[in-house]
């Protein structure tokens, strides 16, 4: 089922009413049924597969409660989780070439075409995270199956996260969720603005970005420069749009999901950027890979951190897909993060001798541009396309312009909307007093303020309709 659709919106609103009309005992079950129905709209086989996956992890979790063979059960659980991920997601990159080496004619990658493992990169991390939490004693196994199933399949976050933590998600389902109008209204507002980000900003930018990467051989050089600068914003609005919809929708059901973005383009170095962008994923890798590795090899001293950082970020890159370009994406981040790690004192010293705004803004711009360059690895289908992209940026004999005047206008409008969001984030971050004044005006109680808010909401709805009519692009992170 398409998320950016009237059908999904109406179904979601009706579900909210049904959810709160039901007895508390049946609410988790209702959400599980909704989530199963949602997944079934993509594939029944996927639904069956994911229920089996949840049953497996549920029982592994219960088995970890006993003291006997705890380590063996844990290892078995992790191996199965990783194996199914490798088979369904990375077979064409890892297993099939290996089989072909021995002249085998089996294509394990074909399994993915049958199961259609949408969201596998997300639910696998959640499954592994749950088992690690139990092994480390950070939480107790979930005794009831329905809440655990919901942890894996909860439909607002199923397709593209945030990557939930079991010790954050499950306790919420155990407590009684009362209807709170403010929560529901806030959730709907967050979801509406998420939808706006996706339909009115990201989808309009997608026209240029997608057609550039599918015409890399002859696209005009100036377009490539524009794409390089624009693509971080595109990915941000696409992904944070989805995340806002997920967080907002979950909030209407009284469930708080983990945050995924915190004004990422205001980060003044790559280290802080990754604490603000795709937070749930980067913090997952930080907690379950980096910390575990640096602790395990702590005897190596500082080298343990460097090694852990390198492994973590390489895995982070590979998580995004089966391809050398994704691995390079991760390695590139690792190199810069290690550089920042070793030069922190030196950079701080230089920074102290430069006026603060110049120091901060040069850092922000450099970080943004670095991420723009990194994304060429992300959006390109392979490494040779990455090379074509960078070399073509300096060729003047290319003439293919991709957009018609109407699409250019749509792109300009999306950039204006995007700029409004970015300016609001800057105000929120750097100009607290102005932000407080804006919020005071926005949250005013009298009729004038209320009417103003309703007009803004109406404009948001109209612009969403207006934008969605022209063409929709799939969410970028749906492929994971």
């Amino acid at each position, binding site marked *: 089922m398409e998320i950016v659709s009237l059908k999904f919106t109406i179904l979601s*609103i009706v579900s909210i009413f049904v959810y709160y009309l039901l007895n508390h005992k049946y609410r988790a079950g209702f959400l599980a049924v909704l989530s199963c129905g949602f997944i079934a709209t993509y594939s029944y086989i996927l639904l069956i597969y994911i229920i089996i996956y949840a049953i497996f992890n549920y029982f592994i979790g219960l088995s970890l409660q006993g003291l006997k063979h705890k380590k063996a059960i844990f290892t078995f659980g992790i191996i199965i989780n990783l194996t199914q991920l490798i088979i369904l997601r990375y077979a064409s990159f890892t297993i099939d070439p290996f089989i072909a080496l021995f002249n085998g004619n089996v294509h394990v990658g074909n399994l993915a075409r049958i199961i259609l493992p949408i969201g596998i990169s997300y639910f696998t991390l959640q499954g592994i995270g749950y088992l690690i939490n139990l092994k480390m004693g950070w939480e107790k196994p979930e005794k009831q199956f329905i809440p655990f199933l919901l942890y894996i399949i909860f439909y607002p976050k199923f397709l593209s996260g945030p990557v939930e933590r079991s010790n954050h998600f499950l306790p919420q389902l155990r407590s009684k969720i009362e*209807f709170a109008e403010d929560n*529901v209204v806030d959730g709907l507002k967050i979801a509406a603005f998420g939808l706006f980000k996706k339909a009115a900003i990201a989808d309009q930018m997608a026209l240029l970005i997608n057609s550039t990467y599918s015409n890399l051989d002859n696209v005009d050089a100036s377009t490539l420069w524009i794409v390089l600068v624009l693509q971080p914003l595109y990915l941000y609005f696409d992904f944070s749009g989805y995340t806002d919809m997920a967080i907002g929708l979950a909030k209407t059901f009284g469930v708080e999901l983990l945050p995924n973005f915190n004004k990422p383009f205001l980060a003044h170095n790559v280290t802080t950027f990754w604490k603000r962008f795709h937070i749930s994923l980067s913090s997952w890798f930080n907690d379950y890979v980096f910390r575990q590795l640096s602790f395990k090899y702590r005897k190596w001293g500082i080298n343990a951190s460097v090694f852990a950082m390198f492994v973590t970020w390489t895995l982070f890159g590979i998580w995004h897909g089966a391809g050398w370009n994704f691995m390079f994406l991760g390695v590139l981040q690792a190199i810069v993060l290690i550089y920042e790690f070793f030069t922190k004192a030196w950079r701080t010293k230089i920074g102290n001798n430069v006026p603060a705004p110049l120091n901060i803004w040069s850092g922000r711009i450099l970080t943004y541009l670095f991420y723009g360059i990194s994304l060429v690895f992300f959006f390109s289908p392979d490494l040779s396309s990455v090379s074509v992209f960078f070399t073509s940026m300096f060729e003047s004999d290319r003439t293919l312009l991709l957009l018609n*005047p109407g699409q250019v206008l749509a792109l300009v409008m999306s950039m204006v909307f995007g700029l409004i969001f970015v300016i609001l984030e800057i105000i929120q971050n750097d100009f607290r007093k102005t932000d407080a004044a804006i919020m005071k005006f926005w949250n005013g109680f009298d009729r004038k303020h209320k009417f103003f808010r309703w007009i803004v*909401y*109406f404009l948001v709805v*109209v612009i969403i*309709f207006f934008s969605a*009519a*022209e063409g929709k692009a799939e969410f970028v992170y749906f492929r994971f």
Partner: protein
Amino acid sequence: MKRFAFKTIIFSLFILLNFILINSIYLGLLMLTDWDCRKRIESLKFNNADFELLALGASTTSCGIDTEYLTDMGIKSYNLALDGATIKTSYFQLAEYLSNNVNRPDYVILGINPPIQKVFDVESINPLVEITSDGYELSLSDAPILRFRWLGYELFMKIVSRKHRLADFSFGQIKYKMSVVDNTDYCELYSEVERVASSHWIGEIVRLCSETGIEMLIVEMPGYKATQNLSKTGLGTIQSANGFQAKMVNLNSREFCRIFEDDDWIVNSHLNEAGGLKLTRELAKYLSK
């Protein structure tokens, strides 16, 4: 919960009413200002029309064929071409005209521009034609702000640019006064007669004309230098995929396009009023042949 449900209903009504209001205003503005809307409304009123010549095609035809000039020359003409119209749209328009009007035209000109219309057999129909045709069932997705978004671009350009407002609408032709110099370079292109002949929907128009005794002329419309071809200008005959014949003339040859000055163009291969007049004068010679 009840309070929330009540608020939800009120808010939904607020959105719905304003949505209707916005759509009505948008539709009203388009009907008053948009050339294609006006043309469609005007052409739907043709009941006993006695045009001797109809021009069909997309925007290059809409700007380029001076039907007022042809009418003054004694061939009563109307330009039915619409911006972004597919060949299927042109077929649909012709069939609709023939079913609504007893008098058949003597000639039909179908303007095509291969470098722009990369694929002739696109199956979509121009939304203006589609939703105003008989038997079409309207749905929510046909709300003007959803369906006619691209006309919003034209409307926006008319608001911000005086040049875009400076145009006349006469006998279906849009006569732009502004000019944009063609800064493109020549490419090695040839007239794609085979592609035209093999097109399903061009074939259907040829068939319709043959069956109703209408002389049909397919015109490869002139474009910017980058789209002009090295083929000869002359008049020829093509055999369509469904076995019918029609005349075709290549007016997009470099040789022919020398008649145009730098200021005869508007953006992207479209002729302005002066350019359209020059083209139609030449085209009249072919019609007389």
